[in-house]
């Protein structure tokens, strides 16, 4: 039954893509985030659905949908340069078999992100992209959040739809991070989108999904999730016009969580401050130090999964015991990029972050005082906060090549191109005016993350 439902969704995307080619790309995004191959009981396991959606997107674009492409600017160039560099580092990888395996999915994600701005160009298409990202994550968040509400969750428990402890939605710390990053997008979607009716029910669903995301974060017992939540709250407050209201909202959420959390949750979180007594955290710090030394010897990186070469021991508990480290993962976006792709990789990855942030700020600035672009400004704000949470959580997780980040970067490019096109039109450029229907919309009610 589950398999047939998921197969039906895949077929829906393929059918919709024949009518509107961007639906193929929506299918690719959904497959990458929902991972139906891992949710399925067998029918879709191992099926190349992602590749099918990707090829369909490319063919449909080239054959049917090459209208008004965006400028091939810095964003796509940088993404393609990043894809080329990670390919180059894979040629000298220290563990080639593992490296090429990771390259295979990572490079597809990067290249698709470079292509996405060509597919998602209008407001409807960009909003559909955001909502499909959320719908894909919603299945995991609802399942994990509901089970947390019933059982209280627990460290290392895989309560989500994916029971394999790997990947963005399977590994609990990663799920906690992406759940946090999803919250501002959920709140945006519940109030701004034109794709869903603006009713109380939709608003209630938005709040319910946000609650499920919060329950997921707490239910994983992931310290990373707490860090990401703290950054989310701070970034939200930082950009808020009504700082007192936002501070009150953050305090209320924190207070409720504090009252409901169990002792074992507090015990787990307390290890953030006493990491030297906890082997998991201690191992991370040791691997980070190892990575810095490794990068000094391999400034161009050791290729994907180069952490598998680390083997060393360190004294713990005052020298009474020895902690053996063998092939321990990087446990950080930044050290992952540094160890795998060297200083060049770190610069390129940092440039991607800077580019996305600049694009979001550009859109926020340009949207000010333009009612027709209010939705874009609010989406850019939500995405900025989302990216901050992801990058904060990612400081303790090796998720540099997970699709969520690249979808944020691609959306930044799409939004920036949309705003340039819309404003150059209304300023007497060669293009036609921006959508009149959108311009007539009342100033979008929510003040976005600023108003909460």
């Amino acid at each position, binding site marked *: *039954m*589950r398999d047939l*439902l*998921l197969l039906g*969704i895949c077929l*829906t*995307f393929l059918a*919709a893509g024949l*009518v*509107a080619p*961007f*639906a193929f790309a*929506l299918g690719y995004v*959904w497959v990458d985030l*929902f991972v139906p191959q891992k*949710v399925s009981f067998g029918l879709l396991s191992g099926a190349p659905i992602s590749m099918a959606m990707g090829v369909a997107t490319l063919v449909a674009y080239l054959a049917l949908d090459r*209208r*008004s492409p965006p400028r091939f600017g810095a964003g796509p160039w940088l993404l393609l340069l990043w894809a080329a560099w990670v390919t180059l580092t894979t040629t000298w990888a220290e563990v080639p078999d593992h490296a090429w395996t990771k390259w295979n999915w990572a490079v597809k994600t990067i290249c698709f992100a470079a292509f996405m701005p060509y597919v998602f*160009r*209008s*407001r*409807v*298409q960009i*909003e*559909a992209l955001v*909502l*499909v990202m959320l*719908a*894909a994550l*919603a*299945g*995991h968040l*609802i*399942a994990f959040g*509901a*089970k947390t509400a*019933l059982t209280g969750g627990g460290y290392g428990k895989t309560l989500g*739809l994916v029971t394999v402890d790997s990947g963005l939605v399977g590994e609990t710390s990663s799920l906690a991070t992406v759940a946090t990053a999803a919250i501002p997008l959920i709140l945006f979607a519940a109030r701004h989108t*034109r*794709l*869903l009716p603006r009713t109380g029910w939709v608003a209630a*669903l938005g709040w319910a999904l946000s609650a499920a995301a919060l329950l997921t974060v707490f239910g994983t017992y992931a310290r990373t999730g707490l860090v990401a939540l703290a950054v989310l709250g701070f970034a939200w407050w930082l950009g808020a016009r009504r700082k007192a209201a936002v501070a009150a909202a953050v305090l209320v959420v924190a207070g409720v969580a504090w009252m409901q959390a169990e002792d074992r949750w507090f015990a787990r979180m307390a290890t953030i401050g006493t990491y030297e007594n906890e082997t998991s955290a201690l191992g991370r710090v040791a691997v980070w130090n190892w990575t810095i030394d490794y990068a000094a010897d391999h400034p161009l990186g050791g290729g994907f999964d180069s952490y598998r070469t680390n083997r060393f021991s360190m004294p713990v508990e005052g020298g009474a015991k020895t902690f053996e480290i063998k092939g321990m993962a990087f446990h950080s976006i930044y050290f992952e990029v540094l160890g795998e792709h060297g200083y060049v990789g770190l610069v390129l990855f940092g440039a991607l972050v800077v580019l996305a942030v600049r694009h979001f700020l550009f859109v926020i600035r340009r949207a000010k005082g333009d009612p027709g672009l209010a939705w874009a400004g609010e989406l850019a704000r939500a995405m900025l906060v989302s990216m901050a949470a992801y990058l904060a959580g990612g400081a303790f997780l090796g998720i540099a090549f997970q699709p969520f980040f690249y979808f944020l970067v691609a959306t930044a490019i799409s939004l920036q191109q949309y705003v340039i*096109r*819309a404003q150059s*039109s209304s300023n007497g450029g*060669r*293009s*036609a*005016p*921006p*959508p*009149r*229907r959108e311009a007539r919309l009342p100033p979008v009610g929510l003040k976005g993350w600023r108003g909460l």
Partner: protein
Amino acid sequence: MIDTAAILLSCAGLVLVVLRAVALDAREPWFSPPDESGRDGDR
């Protein structure tokens, strides 16, 4: 049971969003006819 409900909910939302987006995209074309120079303009 919870998993099935979560999948059903998310898939229902997904289908709603995709179909609505396709319908809106078709109903409100955001490209104007080519101007005299032959360029497309987006609306």
